């Protein structure tokens, strides 16, 4: 399993802010996903209703998770597949290795999968003499660079075009050294031709799953490149890795989730390839795998049920929360120190690896609320980060200064009149400083904070005073 570096968030973040290459990449990428998502959402007037439905589908599934997982497993087996229930990452790794060994696998192709990163599948296979080959373009270059993804849908979010060219030149030694990359398309073409042979040679293909369908026993992957489909179609064996919360009841439920997923992720109306795999190659089929395995992983999820973090299990890994997060936008994904970055990572990582191992992570937030407002399944991310802060506080894991600040806040919060006055004063002061610009590039006493981000200027009044004003206006009508 990938080592957890989350307690180093502060140091990681400082390093990230000083990394000019990273800052350039973040600057280039920033906004691309945002604009596209906004357009896609604007083009579907029902989007807001679909979000409510999506939230409800996931809640219904979680409340009956045992039933739907058993139904899913029964249908996989009816279609000639096999389900492997794994409580821990270790169990899942051993299961994958055993399947690979049972067919004498030498190379394994892989579709992009975050659960594979979480489980540390690649290291484990490599350690046992099996070569994993990442085939998603972004994952492929990261494997060449021996790096981890910095984003859950765009793994190479932190790289610039120059990095791609330099690495390809350095590592694709079978090609002429002085070749020219005129455009990005040349880089894509080189990866395509280099990986073709790997696809054809692989004995086993490993993919993740965006959804599992209880009704039909299908695993669903959503991709744009086609690498996931080549991975699960060409080798003799297909292994789908999925955590238990990926299941939805029916195809109709999946359709609703799919209308949300691509729009929230890349701003596409639908991804290029949305593929449902159900069991093994049929008798008359001319292609497709002879073995179909689903490795169903808990790895800490059941512990989240019944807690204030249960709602996090609705997550469909679209990455909208990190795309819209000012903290992520300033420091990138690696600073978060584990597999899942951004707001969803700040909530999920402590749940999966323990708050004692993640330290400051739930503080990596400005509490601007943007993540919750774009989350397709309406996960209350800021509230959950607050829950973690409270838990952390209770356990006295917080440095003394933060504890006293929180105490001060608590003292104020319990005295509403004072609190309102204090926040109003604070806001007036900020407003004066911003001088109508709408955002501050720097703030006295908070330069460590404003260096890496723009603080949106408060819009003149607190919620409480705006609310009071509206109430008064209503009263007059």
């Amino acid at each position, binding site marked *: 399993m990938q080592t957890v570096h989350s307690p180093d968030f502060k140091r990681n973040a400082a390093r990230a802010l000083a990394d000019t290459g990273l800052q350039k990449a973040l600057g280039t990428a920033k906004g691309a996903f945002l604009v596209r998502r906004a357009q896609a959402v604007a083009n579907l007037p029902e989007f807001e209703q679909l979000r409510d439905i999506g939230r409800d589908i996931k809640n219904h599934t979680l409340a009956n998770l045992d039933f739907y997982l058993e139904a899913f497993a029964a249908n996989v087996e009816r279609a000639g597949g096999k389900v492997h229930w794994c409580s821990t990452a270790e169990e899942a790794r051993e299961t994958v290795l055993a399947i690979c060994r049972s067919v004498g696998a030498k190379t394994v192709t892989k579709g992009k999968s975050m659960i594979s990163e979480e489980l540390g599948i690649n290291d484990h296979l490599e350690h046992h003499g099996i070569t994993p080959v990442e085939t998603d373009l972004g994952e492929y270059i990261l494997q060449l660079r021996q790096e981890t993804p910095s984003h859950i849908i765009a793994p190479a979010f932190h790289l610039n075009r120059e990095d791609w060219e330099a690495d390809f030149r350095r590592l694709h030694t079978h090609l002429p050294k002085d070749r020219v990359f005129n455009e990005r398309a040349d880089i894509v073409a080189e990866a395509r031709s280099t990986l073709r042979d790997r696809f054809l040679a692989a004995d086993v293909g490993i993919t993740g799953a965006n959804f599992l369908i209880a009704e039909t026993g299908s695993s669903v992957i959503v991709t744009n490149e*086609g690498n996931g489909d*080549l991975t699960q179609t060409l080798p003799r064996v297909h292994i789908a890795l999925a955590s238990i919360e990926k299941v939805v009841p029916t195809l109709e439920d999946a359709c609703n989730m799919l209308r949300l997923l691509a729009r929230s992720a890349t701003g596409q109306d639908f991804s290029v390839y949305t593929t449902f795999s159900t069991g093994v190659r049929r008798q008359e089929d001319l292609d497709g795998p002879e073995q179909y395995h689903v490795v169903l992983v808990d790895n800490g999820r059941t512990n989240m049920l019944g807690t204030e973090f249960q709602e996090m299990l609705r997550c469909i890994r679209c990455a909208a929360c990190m795309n819209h997060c000012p903290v992520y936008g300033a420091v990138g994904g690696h600073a978060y120190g584990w597999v899942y970055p951004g707001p969803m990572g700040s909530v999920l990582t402590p749940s999966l690896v323990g708050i004692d191992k993640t330290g400051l992570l739930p503080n990596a937030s400005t509490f601007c609320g943007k993540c919750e407002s774009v989350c397709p399944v309406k996960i209350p991310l800021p509230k959950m980060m607050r829950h973690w802060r409270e838990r952390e506080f209770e356990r006295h894991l917080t440095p003394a200064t933060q504890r006293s600040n929180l105490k001060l806040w608590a003292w104020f919060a319990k005295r509403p009149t004072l609190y309102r006055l204090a926040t109003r004063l604070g806001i007036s002061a900020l407003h004066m400083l911003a001088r109508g610009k709408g955002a501050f590039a720097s703030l006295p006493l908070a330069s460590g904070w404003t260096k890496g981000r723009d603080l949106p200027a408060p819009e003149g009044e607190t919620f409480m005073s705006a609310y009071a004003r509206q109430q008064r206006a209503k009263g007059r009508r």
Partner: protein
Amino acid sequence: MSKEAILNGIRRGLKRGPLPADQQAMLAGRLASHPRHLQPARAQLPRPAQVALFLRNVEKEFGTVERVPHAGAVPGAVADYLAAQNLAPKFVLAPNPELWAMPWSERPMLEFHSGRAEATDMVSVQHGFVGVAETGTLMLPAAPTRPTTLNLLPDTEIVVLKASGIVAGYEDAFDRLRAENQDALTGGFMPRNIMFVTGPSRSADIEQTLELGAHGPRRLHIILIDDDPAALAQDAADEAGFAPLPGAAPAWTETAPATDTWAPPAPQPGVAAPQADQG
């Protein structure tokens, strides 16, 4: 057993035991009735507008389209497309009786074999099942007559689709499949694989900038057969003197494709070719 451990963990978390029988029956009922959710209004259109929306969305996603009046015009459309793209007139054809029945011999330059795709195949001609108007998405369920590799290995994929196969949403596509496909292994309707394809392969992994032609086809071309009078704009339908009949075999079905790699159609149990919707 980890299965029991996981199920018990779920129940512990949810603070309950196994679900009572009546609750289980209710959930089984939900699976059996698989209720639909909200259907976006954008695709709930009269037939001609629905087909037009499908085509518009295909093009928006960088696919290309040609409409032909009847199945007999497909070989010509394939030949002309390949010539226009400067591609060799060679392809792998889905082993589908409807495709086999087309007058390929009228275009003797075309060279093809019928079967699954291999790494050396540069062009495929695939049999389309359904087109989803909502997003310009093709539904391609795997079948002996519709191998999955045709959607993946070639550089160029040409999909032959009937206008009668165009539906509003993904749920409508699944309804067609539920009605028309019988899977011998499971007794259900799901084939081993269903690909929903929206435009040619692409990647935005380099600086979040879109590049076409990642690992799958660089080009996706759809040849749409206007077999559905209701799908034509009324004046166009009149002009075409449109009256296709189900099962009325045109003369050219007698001619077997004249290439040496062609294999005679084998009976395909359990796989229903999509029926033209004349309704």
